[in-house]
């Protein structure tokens, strides 16, 4: 029954792109001087956006909440430093649509003064797990590997299935990035401390720290730290992209597969990033919310690659300037890793909680070839870690065959980009998948809308019919009453047969109302099914 932890398994497919980690591998984490302005978006996570809870002109202290969580699956936003809220405006943001996002513009006062109310927990391991989770929730911690899913949600064990093992993801399988590797090398003790609180929140005892074996320094440091803590095991994995994707990591380490459409918790496994463990520690020990993160600034287009610890909201341009600026001939600036990151067209975009890297890519590092026809080579099918058929998915998305996208499991695609990496025709497969998902979502919304209108109009029809029937019934009653009166006025005792002859209309009335009455439940059911 127990989980067999092993580094010998593999996931299906995968690729091994050129790593380029040597550019920044040896760059110790360093801070930066406070920028002139921070642009802190109110939506930095998966889930509901935050509601601003500060007004322009207001002075805030470091760690003070400035955006209230918009629901259970959401995470509050805090001031990364002390200063004045200059404005709350729409500002460019790292979003695929290129749209702007609501941001708090914070002008630092230079004191970097923590809010005095921020306090850590005393003897956290003796507290109820829920108290740990609440603290983590209030600290605004989200998955720092890039997925940005609110961590307190992922630290809540499901009621039906206990958590057997916590996997700490230090795979860092994206090329170029080294921020997690540096964190593990430099802050191993803090990370293991954070892991203890996570284990407590999850009410489990087993933890495996998973690191790809191109990071010997991190493996060494974490192994040493783990020796001092019970329950933590370090596992070195052979390099393969996308091993750091949640589903693949689980498959490699535990041999189990997350059910399609399900959650890792369904099979007793929870995955958190190393950076998240560190943030958890800060929150539990010192009550400090997530205000900073480490970003790898690298690429051949960067004069001096570095691992910078920066306040959330720092513009990308500031990071690049700090690293000596862009070399001439830079083709692309990417936020995140080269496989899943987002190409930027504006360097004023701020760093958010999920930003792991800023890459400046030269022409020789990035793709520029025009898209060719699909020659059905099957490369994409061979490498897809989720065993999908990317060429078929792309073809259907491209031709708007939305109804057929389910047959090829488009929704299972994690957009890891492995397929596009090997495509000889340079087909932007992931682009088509995003389009397909977007179109499906739009279609679903449209369907829900029409279903709603339909149910509304059906309900209205039913109501009208019922009202009409009711009116008829009343009319009929009145008529009958009149007749009866007339008859009574005629003073002659009416024969029984005549009375009977007048009853059918009365029976008829409720019958007319019945179809109307039965419409409503049917509509309600229709609304529930899709």
């Amino acid at each position: 029954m127990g989980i067999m932890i092993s580094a010998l398994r593999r996931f299906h497919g995968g690729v091994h792109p050129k790593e380029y980690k040597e550019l920044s591998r040896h760059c110790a984490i360093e801070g930066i001087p406070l920028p002139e302005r921070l642009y802190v978006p109110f939506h930095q996570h998966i889930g509901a956006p935050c509601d601003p809870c500060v007004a322009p002109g207001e002075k805030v202290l470091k760690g003070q909440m400035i955006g209230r969580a918009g629901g259970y699956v959401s995470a509050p936003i805090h001031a990364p430093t002390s200063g004045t809220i200059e404005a709350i405006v729409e500002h460019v943001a790292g979003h695929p649509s290129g749209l702007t996002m609501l941001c708090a513009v914070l002008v630092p006062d230079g004191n970097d003064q923590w809010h005095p109310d921020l306090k850590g927990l005393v003897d956290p391991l003796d507290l109820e797990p829920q108290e740990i989770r609440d603290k983590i929730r209030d600290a605004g911690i989200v998955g720092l590997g890039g997925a940005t899913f609110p961590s307190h949600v992922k630290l809540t064990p499901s009621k039906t299935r206990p958590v057997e093992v916590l996997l700490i993801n230090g795979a860092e399988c994206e090329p170029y990035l080294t921020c997690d590797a540096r964190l593990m090398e430099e802050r191993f003790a803090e990370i293991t401390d954070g892991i203890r609180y996570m284990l407590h929140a999850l009410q489990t005892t087993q933890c495996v720290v998973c690191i790809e074996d191109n990071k010997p320094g991190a493996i060494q440091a974490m192994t040493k730290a783990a020796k001092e803590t019970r329950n933590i095991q370090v596992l070195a994995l052979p390099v393969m992209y996308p091993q750091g994707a949640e589903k693949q990591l689980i498959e490699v380490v535990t041999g189990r597969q997350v059910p399609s459409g399900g959650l890792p918790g369904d099979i007793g496994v929870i995955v958190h990033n190393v950076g998240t463990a560190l943030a958890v520690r800060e929150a539990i020990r010192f009550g400090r919310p997530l205000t900073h993160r480490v970003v790898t600034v690298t690429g051949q287009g960067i004069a001096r690659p570095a691992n910078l610890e920066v306040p959330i909201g720092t513009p990308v341009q500031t990071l690049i300037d700090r690293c000596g600026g862009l070399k001439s001939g830079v083709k692309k600036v990417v936020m995140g890793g080269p496989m899943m990151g987002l190409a930027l067209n504006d360097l004023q975009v701020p760093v958010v909680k999920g930003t792991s890297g800023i890459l400046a890519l030269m022409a020789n590092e990035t793709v520029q070839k025009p898209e060719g026809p699909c020659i059905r080579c099957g490369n994409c099918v061979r490498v897809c870690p989720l065993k999908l058929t990317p060429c078929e998915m792309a073809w259907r998305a491209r031709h708007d065959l939305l109804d057929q996208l389910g047959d090829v499991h488009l929704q299972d695609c994690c957009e890891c980009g492995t397929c596009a990496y090997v495509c000889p025709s340079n087909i932007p497969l992931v682009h088509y998948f995003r389009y397909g998902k977007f179109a499906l979502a739009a279609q679903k919304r449209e369907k829900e809308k029409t279903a709603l209108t339909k149910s509304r109009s059906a309900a209205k029809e039913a109501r009208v019919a019922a009202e009409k029937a009711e009116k008829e019934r009343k009319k009929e009653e009145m008529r009958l009453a009149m007749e009866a009166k007339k008859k009574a006025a005629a003073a002659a005792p009416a024969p029984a047969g005549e009375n009977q002859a007048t009853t059918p209309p009365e029976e008829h009335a409720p019958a007319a109302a019945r179809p109307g009455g039965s419409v409503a439940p049917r509509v309600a059911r229709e609304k529930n099914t899709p």
Partner: protein
Amino acid sequence: MSKLPLLVTSSPHVHGGNSIPGIMNAVIWALLPGAAMGVMVFGWSALFVILITVAACMVTERLVNAIRSRPSTLPDNSAALTGLLLAMSLPPNSPWWVCVTGGFFAILLGKHLYGGLGYNMFNPALIARVFLLISFPVQLTSWPSPSPLMSGQAHSLAEGLALILSGPAGAPELLDALSSATPLGQYRTELGLGHTVAEALGGTYAFDLLSAATGMLKGSLGETSAILLTLGGLYLLRKGIITWHIPGAMLAGCLAPAAIFWYLDPTKYPDPLFHLVTGGLILGAFFMATDMVTSPISPVGQIVFGLGCGLLTYVIRTWGGYPEGVSFAIVIMNAAVPLIDQYSRPVVYGAQKSKA
């Protein structure tokens, strides 16, 4: 302040470097030893067949591009590859007009009529060969005996050219070389006359496995050298251009029944090695059936497809109306690819358990 001309495209931002010309060129390289052997064995005429067919394909490709006002697709080298494959499946003395018609048919009707590279249902080279075989059965079944370059029987460059340009009449002294049959043809004809396999292939015909494996036997220009073609195939496997699924399954699909029937009755059915080294089985398995556009995309589908190709090859060779079945088998299986693809999709990660 930061308005750089930055490229904004969808992720991923790095690429593994695979390319269509890369694939086509690798296949061409892998074919060249076999083709060179064909020229060595059959003389200069074979070289002209290759050159004319490749040229016909490339000219047609360019013309179609021009007519559809598209940029030239010649640089992807797929037309050149189609030409080479077609030439290698033709008799080494094919007249020039057969080569030109074949090349034209392959590119225009076999490929562009469907919409161009990636959209065609049948392997263009094979569909053209089938078309030629049906239209010009005489020319497509005239098999010259090997007349290796630098040997006594070799024809000169000029004679080779004359042979291709004006048919056998252009070089009457070479005529006597045109009479006999390929091993597969010999086997079928003689068996039809009531002889055993040993009688058919022994005696004056003197079939010899070793010379067959090296390529010294009658047959199409580029299909005779089992050894060099296998080496070419292994090169493609090593480079990851093809996987073992299709060639492995196709060879198994043909050789397994061959072994069974041979075991049951060796007088009527030749041994599997005979099937392996004669005809176009190896060329077909490594180079024709593996054509990416016209084969299934998933490994399971590829195995099914390969088995089908092999099995049909054996059936046609043994009981069909033609002595050689590789082209027909692959073309028939090409038509089944959409169906195979539909039913051989890999089981998606985590799918089994989601049904619960």
